[in-house]
């Protein structure tokens, strides 16, 4: 028989696909495993996007063009920073500043339903900027015993308008719910005076928001007066850097582990399929099938598995995100086009890596295996 014609023949028979689909249950388990790994990668990517989005929420939604901060402080997310309250008058005095408002912030730990729940408390002056930017119901706080809470916190702990909430030993009446939720924590809004009282240090503020048509000019003038002033974009960049700096290493580690798990599962499924059909592959080799052809078969199998796993992963991700959104809304999962592209790239990478073991096994296969009885 002409080896060329033999080599040509297997191309017509979809060996890789038939081999994979010979046992549907095994294929289903393999695809589910890969799908779970892809789902994990997509979920982590989605959480990462959620972290990034929520890290810049306050700076982007406060309406400020400029932020006057304590010297050395570069972002808002840490809840750090302290300025003398008269700084706000100094900012207002600038001819280019249209408005300025002091904002005081602090992290507090609420004890709700036997659990510790972190919250980012924002204290603003009633009628001035810096308070809740998006109201789901009710209104912003006007007096020092009123509070507006994030919708996620409210939903998780059954808090509604009119209820009372304890904050650092003081009781506040919930007057509004706001669509202002951070990653794993909620924003709560009180008056500046209320937070002064809770912090025990009146006459201070955390930062000053300012609006200015010519932000660059106002920044330069305020800096010349010794005020540490940053533009909105820079504060957002710094907020993002702070948040991603904290969570970057663990998330990257988890993604790497997810990739490793997916690769192993693809390799295991493809390898098992190859080993069980080694007699058939021996026949292909005995009939003149080249090593490259057999390696191509292994790669085709792993790619098919990865493609199926990608589809399964997508479905699992959609279902998983739905479950998490409903039960754990504090984890914002944002799907981006980049995440979808990265999942495809991850699946492709896993498939190629996973092909190494079965491909080596096929390359080392003796044609004589065709004449041995099945083990």
């Amino acid at each position, binding site marked *: 028989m002409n080896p060329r014609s033999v080599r040509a023949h297997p191309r017509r028979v979809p060996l890789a696909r038939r081999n994979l689909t010979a*046992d549907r*249950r*095994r294929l289903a*388990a*393999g695809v*589910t*495993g890969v799908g*779970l790994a892809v*789902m*994990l990668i997509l*979920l982590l990517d989605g959480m990462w996007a959620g972290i990034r989005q929520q890290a810049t929420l306050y700076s982007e939604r406060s309406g400020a063009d400029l932020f006057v901060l*304590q*010297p*050395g*402080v*570069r972002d808002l997310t*840490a*809840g*750090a920073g*302290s300025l003398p309250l008269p700084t706000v008058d100094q900012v207002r005095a600038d001819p280019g500043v249209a408005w300025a408002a002091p904002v005081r912030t*602090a*992290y*507090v*730990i609420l*004890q709700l339903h036997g*659990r*510790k*729940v*972190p919250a980012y408390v924002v204290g603003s002056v009633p009628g001035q900027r810096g308070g809740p930017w998006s109201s789901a119901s009710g209104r912003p706080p006007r007096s020092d015993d009123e509070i507006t809470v994030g919708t996620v916190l409210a939903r998780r702990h059954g808090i509604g308008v009119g209820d009372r909430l304890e904050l*650092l*030993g003081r009781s506040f009446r919930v007057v509004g719910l706001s669509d202002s939720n951070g990653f*794993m924590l909620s924003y709560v809004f009180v008056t500046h005076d209320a937070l002064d009282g*809770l*912090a*025990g*240090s009146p006459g201070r503020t955390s930062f000053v928001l300012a609006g200015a048509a010519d932000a660059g000019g106002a920044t330069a003038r305020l800096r010349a007066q010794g005020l540490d002033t940053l533009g909105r974009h820079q504060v957002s960049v710094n907020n993002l850097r702070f948040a991603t700096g*904290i969570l970057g*290493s*663990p998330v990257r*580690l*988890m993604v790497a*582990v*997810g990739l*490793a*798990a997916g690769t*192993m*599962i693809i*390799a*295991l499924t493809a*390898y*098992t399929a190859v*080993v*069980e059909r080694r007699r058939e592959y021996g026949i292909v080799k005995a009939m003149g099938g080249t090593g490259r052809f057999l390696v191509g078969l292994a790669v085709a199998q792993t790619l098919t598995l990865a493609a199926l796993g990608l589809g399964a992963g997508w479905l699992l991700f959609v279902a*998983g995100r739905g479950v998490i959104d409903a039960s*754990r809304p504090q*984890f914002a999962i944002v799907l981006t086009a980049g995440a979808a592209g990265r999942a495809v790239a991850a699946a492709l990478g896993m498939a190629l890596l996973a092909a190494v*073991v079965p491909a080596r*096994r096929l390359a080392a296969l003796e044609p004589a295996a065709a004449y041995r*009885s*099945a083990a």
Partner: protein
Amino acid sequence: MRGRVPLARRALFQDRRRAALAAGGVAAALLLVLLLQGIFDGAMRQATAYLRASPADVIVSQRDVRTMHMSVSALDPATDDAVRAVDGVAWAEGLRYTTTFLVGAGDRQQLSYVIGYDTATGRGGPRRLSAGRPPGPGEILVERIAADRLGLRLGDRVGVFGGTFRVSGLFHGGTTIANSAAFIRTEDFAAGTPSAYVLVGARPGVPAGDLARRVAAAVPGDTVQTTGRFAREEAALVRDMSADLMRIMSTIGLLIALAVIALTLFTLTLAKLREHAVVKALGGRTRRLAAVVLAEAAWSVALAVAVATAAAVVLGAVVGRVNPAVAVAVTPAGVVRVGLSALAVGAVGAIVPLRRVVAVDPASAFRRAS
């Protein structure tokens, strides 16, 4: 004869590459759970480092403030004296406390809790300095990892509160993935800053619990806890914050493990059906065959747990080198928890293969393999 031939082990390890891939797949899934658990356990240890080293028996804080991390606390200026006057109190010292950024060379920043303490007694400061001496006026103690991040050495100046402080000493412990701790003299906090916490020492023979009750009666508007309770509250903060994330990741990790175990056992059972039939034809009971499948599951899980644990320890060390603020604490209790969950998953994964071996026909042993 019975029990002498380790059928499960032999079947599982006959093809070492397949065994390695199966163990690797399950191990990677368990590694996910172990690592995340290790990161949170490590954070818990770091978060309680200061309290575990504190000589205080009782800690007083603002009402409803039970932790230092992510907390603000401000006490009435009269609190220190009120506590000192309580019977059974040997000493009481107020701590100033705030969260701010340390700014080092090249504008590098480190979020840090800055604690103001009485350097004469040293009770509120770090237990041991790894270099230098306690802070004098305008000086600061910086945690070693934070100092490395900020590019600081002894004698350098670091930006705090809008001014600069000179680094007089370094200590070890307390820098977490999110923040660090630094110590200055009480007097270097802005004048009039109230105590955030009061550390209280008990006279000999006075149990901490009793002292806490007495102090609580003296300052009823504040929160009074034993140091042990305070540390548990700090740990609970990390645990409560991480619990939901842990649950999500553990579920995914264990589902992946389930898929791999089911895949491995199913494939193995199918490949060995003839051998199972031979065992049955020789008088082996179904129970024995079921035990073989379950033993295969147990072997798969045991091997994977061992590999995942070793990988977690190695990865933890690597991560610690790359980013010293991330501590991965792989604890025996954590490994046992993951192992038990994996065993349960292994048992579920064995259900379909078990049904296959139960249904195996002994006569198939005498048929030719196709």
